[in-house]
């Protein structure tokens, strides 16, 4: 799309699996592109869809969500909730006219450093092909601070 475009990807990792997989990739000197910024959660189940929307509206071009394989979540079944949230988010993005490929879910155990590195590499290329996600979120969610004097009886009747 654009020769100079370097995608920014936020990657949410699980402390027990994918974070260690990424660590393993690092110590084993498996190369993956520097476009991803990893954020560690205790479990993929901690992934609130707000995090994904916040990333996308704060300048990320894509969001990678990773967690333990089905059946291997350290908090039993939380990664299934993540899967459901992810599938709902994809539908919302699609209806908003946003490419659902901007978010991706990958299961990676602590031993799968090579696999994770490959998934990251693939995703960076996919997002590169999609082009930048132009975040147009300049408006404050909360009102700007206003120094408004609270009304008192005198002010009110002045």
């Amino acid at each position: 799309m654009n020769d100079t475009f370097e995608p920014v990807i936020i990657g949410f990792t699980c402390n027990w699996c994918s974070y260690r997989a990424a660590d393993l990739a690092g110590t084993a000197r498996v190369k993956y592109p520097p476009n991803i910024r990893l954020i560690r959660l205790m479990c993929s189940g901690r992934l609130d869809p707000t995090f994904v929307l916040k990333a996308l509206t704060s300048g990320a071009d894509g969001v990678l969500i990773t967690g333990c394989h089905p059946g291997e979540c350290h908090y039993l079944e939380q990664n299934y909730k993540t899967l459901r949230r992810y599938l709902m988010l994809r539908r919302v993005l699609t209806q908003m006219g946003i490419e659902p490929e901007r978010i991706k879910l990958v299961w990676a155990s602590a031993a799968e450093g090579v696999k994770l590195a490959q998934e990251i590499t693939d995703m960076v290329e996919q997002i590169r092909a999609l082009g930048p996600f132009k975040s147009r979120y300049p408006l404050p969610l909360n009102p700007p601070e206003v120094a408004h004097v609270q009304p008192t009886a005198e002010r009110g009747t002045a």
Partner: protein
Amino acid sequence: MSVNGKPKFAMYWAASCGGCEIAVLNIHEKILDVDANFEVVFWPVAMDAKYKDVEAMPDEAITLTLFNGGIRNTENEAMAHLMRRKSKILVAFGSCACAGCIPGLANLSTREQIFEAVYEGVSTDNPTGIRPDFQWAAPEGNLHIPEFYPVLKTLDQVVAVDYYMPGCPPESHQIGAVVDLVIQALQGKATLPPTGSVIGAGTSTVCDECPRIRNVKTIQHFTRIQQLAAIDPNLCLLEQGIPCNGPATRSGCGALCPRAGAQCIGCYGSSDGTLDFGARLMTAFASVIEGKEPAEIERVLDTLPDPVGQFYRFSLAHSMLRAAPVVLEEEEQYATHHH
């Protein structure tokens, strides 16, 4: 200006349906308290007053303005700035002003798509495809009508807002309570909450106010309420497969809809501490949907045919994404042309 020395009250409607105005009139005899304690200086739905009358007032001359409706066009925005300037306390009144409400769902569509639906839709007889012109050179001079913006904005996206009063419309007993509070504060008997607070509502969720029983049951598909032969009167509606927005919606109405056997559709907006209503609701739905395989989950989600309408019915304009990117692009172009 003041003939009787009473603090001044105003109410204005921007892109709104009129329901918020009815809700204020519906506070019954409390409306007499409003009259006894305030001088109503501007309220287009209830009295004859002109914009120029407001313009002529000194800044902050009006003590309390209830502003309902979203910001859809140039007139709405100009009035938002005017009412801000002239008011000490500006309240975003009702879901439209607070979060965009139903008019905010138009943020999924471009101006062209909206105009097409409105001026050439199935219910419109307009064989020559006439569209409004925002400016028209008439023999008597140039005529202007308010210009339609690409994006619907909430009140706090154009001016600073002192308080938010959610609801579509806000419940009458809550309006009455707020009126009481302001009157008490004016008499020095109470203090108003900090600027930026949500007033006339609770802090938790509709589920907290709902008497229906939850059994941590999971569901295999969603059902439209009108398709059910019978609704269990005691059981949580969500657990009966009816997509109820109670888990993400701010308390304050007393769980009116689920008590009456209908799902909460979320008119009181986000509960405390929630940045994005839909994100909160997706999290809640993820806990009740059954399925561990993507295909299985997709089958459940197929029974929610309008995800944005479900998750953002009242909150799209105030959500993190705000509008479809193509619509935001239009907004950007509009802004560069007009500034």
